[in-house]
């Protein structure tokens, strides 16, 4: 499906509830507004960004085109018997994602095929920007879809937040760069923290009185801006410290982020949208190990994804929170149908997305991508 359609639903429709029906959440448009408040525990969306352009064809393998895949991407294709059969729509998963099969069997995982956009832009920044801002690839919007959605419904943000109805931040992002999806027109406070125990607010002296001088005036302004960027720190920190880890998380960048998100959710933070990220998907070369294509760089980061997501969902299962959490992955574009001689793939177009949740309609959305027998370098997957 076109990425744009379902993201536009979110931006312009009443709520995340707009996309829920297509995932079988079973809610109608009007009755549900994910972002109506952050007072009570409610539904939560967790977005996992795969930076670099994930190779969808090696992640979710269309078995009905396997012989053609062997012909066009011999350097990276894996032996069929190593793949993890999903038992749906003739799809299989990369061996590193073996644990995700369990979620699929439990009807808690959905695959959406061929998500992409027209006139793809193969630059990383531009693609991420396009993705996250739901723009046409020749437009350039400066705020992300989540941000715009929030502003549309919460125009006072951030000047009047926190307030009684919104004591907790609407969205939190972990990672080291401001992702466009979260800087709305009225800039979100996004936290970049590697450990919520050491929050920024604690260092700056917000009540310090600066004198009425040229320099003092400047300092007052800086103080004002700093304050606005830190309004929620106490609550976030409190939630984090309320609970401990309840499940063993592997070590790794994504794991740490999901571990933090899990603690914040279980600790009682009513933030509605979390964004985390994992890098390394830009596998132009050495995507696979030359000796064993089930190993290598791609395999390693997919394993990280596998292990982290599994631990994340299990930790929410243990506390009974997994009913209200929807997790999705996305990457700025896919990779070429062809492999290249450096045992990698280059920037392509469409790729599959995963959605995890307890109440989703777990049918595969979209048809398996067509793999031609002979793919030219310029051929790329069509998005639906």
């Amino acid at each position, binding site marked *: 499906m076109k990425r744009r359609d379902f993201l536009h639903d979110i931006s312009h429709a009443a709520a995340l509830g707009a996309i829920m029906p297509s995932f079988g959440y079973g809610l109608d448009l009007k009755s549900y507004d994910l972002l109506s408040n952050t007072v009570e525990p409610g539904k939560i969306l967790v977005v996992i960004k795969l930076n670099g352009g994930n190779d969808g064809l090696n992640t979710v393998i269309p078995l009905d085109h396997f012989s053609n895949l062997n012909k066009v991407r011999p350097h990276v294709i894996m032996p069929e018997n190593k793949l993890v059969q999903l038992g749906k729509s003739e799809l299989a998963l990369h061996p590193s994602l073996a644990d995700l099969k369990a979620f699929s069997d439990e009807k808690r995982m959905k695959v959406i095929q061929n998500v992409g956009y027209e006139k793809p832009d193969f630059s990383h920044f531009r693609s991420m920007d396009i993705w996250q801002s739901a723009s046409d690839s020749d437009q350039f919007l*400066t705020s992300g879809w989540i941000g715009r959605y929030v502003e549309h419904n919460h125009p006072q943000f951030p000047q009047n937040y926190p307030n009684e109805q919104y004591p907790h931040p609407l969205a939190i992002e972990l990672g080291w760069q401001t992702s466009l999806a979260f800087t709305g027109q009225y800039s979100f406070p996004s936290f*970049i923290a590697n450990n919520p125990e050491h929050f920024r607010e604690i*260092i700056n*002296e917000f009540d310090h009185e600066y004198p009425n001088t040229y320099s003092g005036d400047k300092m007052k302004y800086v103080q004002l801006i700093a304050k606005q960027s830190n309004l929620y720190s106490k609550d976030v920190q409190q939630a984090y410290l309320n609970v401990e880890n309840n499940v063993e998380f592997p070590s790794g960048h994504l794991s740490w982020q999901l571990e933090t998100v899990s603690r914040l959710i279980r600790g009682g933070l009513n933030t509605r949208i979390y964004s985390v990220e994992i890098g390394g998907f830009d596998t132009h070369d050495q995507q696979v190990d030359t000796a064993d294509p089930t190993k290598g760089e791609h395999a390693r980061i997919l394993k990280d994804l596998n292990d982290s997501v599994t631990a994340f969902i299990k930790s929410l299962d243990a506390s009974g929170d997994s009913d209200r959490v929807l997790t999705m992955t996305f990457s700025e574009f896919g990779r070429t149908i062809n492999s290249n001689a450096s045992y990698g793939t280059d920037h392509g177009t469409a790729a599959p997305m995963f959605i995890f949740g307890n109440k989703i309609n777990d049918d595969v959305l979209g048809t398996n991508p067509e793999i031609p027998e002979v793919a030219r370098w310029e051929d790329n997957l069509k998005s639906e």
Partner: protein
Amino acid sequence: MAIDQKPPRPNFGPKNPQPPLDLEKIFKEERIDLKALMDSRKLTKEINKTLAPYTGEFGDAQKKHLLKRTMVGYASRHLKDLEGLTMEQAVDKIMTPHEIGEPVNNYYFEISAEEYKEKYKNEDVGPGEPFLDRPYVNWEGNGPIEIFGWERHTAVDSWVYHGMYSQPTSILWKFYVFMHNLTPVVRTSHKANYSYLKTLIDAPYRNYRDFIYDLTLEPTMLEYLNLQLSRKETPDENYAREVQELFTVGKRPFSRYTEGDVQSAARLLVGWQFDHYETHHSEGWKPVVYFRPWNHDTGDKQFSEFYGDKLIKGREGEAGAEELEDFLDMIFETDEVAIYLSRRLFQFFVYPVLSDHIEQEIIKPMAEIMRSNGYNLSETLRVLLKSEYFYSEELFNSLLKAPLDFTFSLYKEFDILNADLQMWVHEEQKQYLSIFEEDRGQFDEKYFDEIYRIYKVFGNIQWRLNQQGMQLFEPPSVSGWPAFYQEPVYDLFWLNSVTIKAKKDLTEPMGRWGLHFEDRSHLRLKLSSFIDSFENAENLDSFISQLTDRFLGGPIPERAYIRIKKSVLGDQLNENYWTEAVTRYRSNPNRDNYNTLYHRLEQFMYLLFELNEMHVH
């Protein structure tokens, strides 16, 4: 290629510059109570000083103030350079220009000579060789365009930024930023860009009128403000307007040039064009500009009362080129040029907010000095930088740092090109540090090559600066950056929720594990030389006090100070934690002692950088 034909719009390839951040828009959206700010500003006392020479004490505070206004990023090494100098000697030293060399091939790590030839169908120069004099091939209509190639583009960028980073204690590069903001263009080919840059670098040290003449005929300017395509039948007014409004006499109501003046100027200016091939491609980098008599309006040009009702006679043939000289002579006869330029100098180098007192006591006398000094901007500024007004204490740390200053003072103070390399490999749960022999092999040898470092660190810095709202070479408009001219907000534009985060994205890693370099490696403070550069580093209070002097624009508020100390020493404020870490490391810089000390240091360095006091200078 025919002279009329424009080359395709520059496309710098996969390393695309990001679109500039719109600081004015973000500021509006912050919904700052501007009225309250303005009211508060009114309450601040006027500085009642004049342009008379300063005769007071010239200690560290005064020196730092001078350096913060004249360097691209203050750093303690500049302060050392002023040791033992009087105020006059210090200013004179700073006002002295210096050589800047030229860009060379430092991109050979990313593209080999064979690959370059394959890509652009032209021979590349060898590693470390200059390339601007070399001929460029003509673009055939397909494939990458050599005159805009991103490799050499990055080489030029990194040469400029490296120049700023390694600058001697001279105002040259800061003056370049001033000129760049005053007379901006959009960049085109490598050669044309370089010619324009050289013109700006030289501008403050010569007659500004001659600079304007040269600027008018710079290919980048001819293109940017449309003279290149102007036709005598319907002359383009863009340059005609901006050369008056922005570059010489300034805006109304101060200057009273009329629309008629713009039209007359447009007719006068038609006929100048640069030759594409000779400028962008042929050997040498000096542009080739022609005057085209057949495209010139030969009628008389009448100007308004503001210009003394001057009539510039239209001339036929090649003599039409002389009209440009007459035009500039006419402009420079007005009083307004010197006043406008003095105002711009004052607002950039001292403080942006003007007042009647400043107009009378500072701007007017500066203008007189400028007129009697052949419109030499640096001579005029010299007087300002030696004045009692300039050294008023109220002005110390009164400006928000522009992104260039914020970033470069950090890089300079960290001596980033000499930094150690650090890498964390999480599958092995191990840290590698280049200072230890046994780890060195983990890092690619080229990471230790200075040229590679220059290419990586300064070739990529544009992105970082853009995140903070100031992408050099890509100003948001022909007026430059709003923070430098847009009243009443001025430098407040630099800081908002978006850019404050961008700055933290820079300072937090630098304070903790280092500046990201390549792959998983980071450039980290060279601990040994850093610690050695402090006196009495074992004493934490002394150490923090010296850090404050180096990085901050004011003292740390008391409660924040205690929190910072607690983060290093624990709640009991056990001074020994720090002292022991330092002494142990000094007596035996092995891995354990290094890590213990570094761990302590990083715990509070990044917190220090979080303070509001980081943002003013």
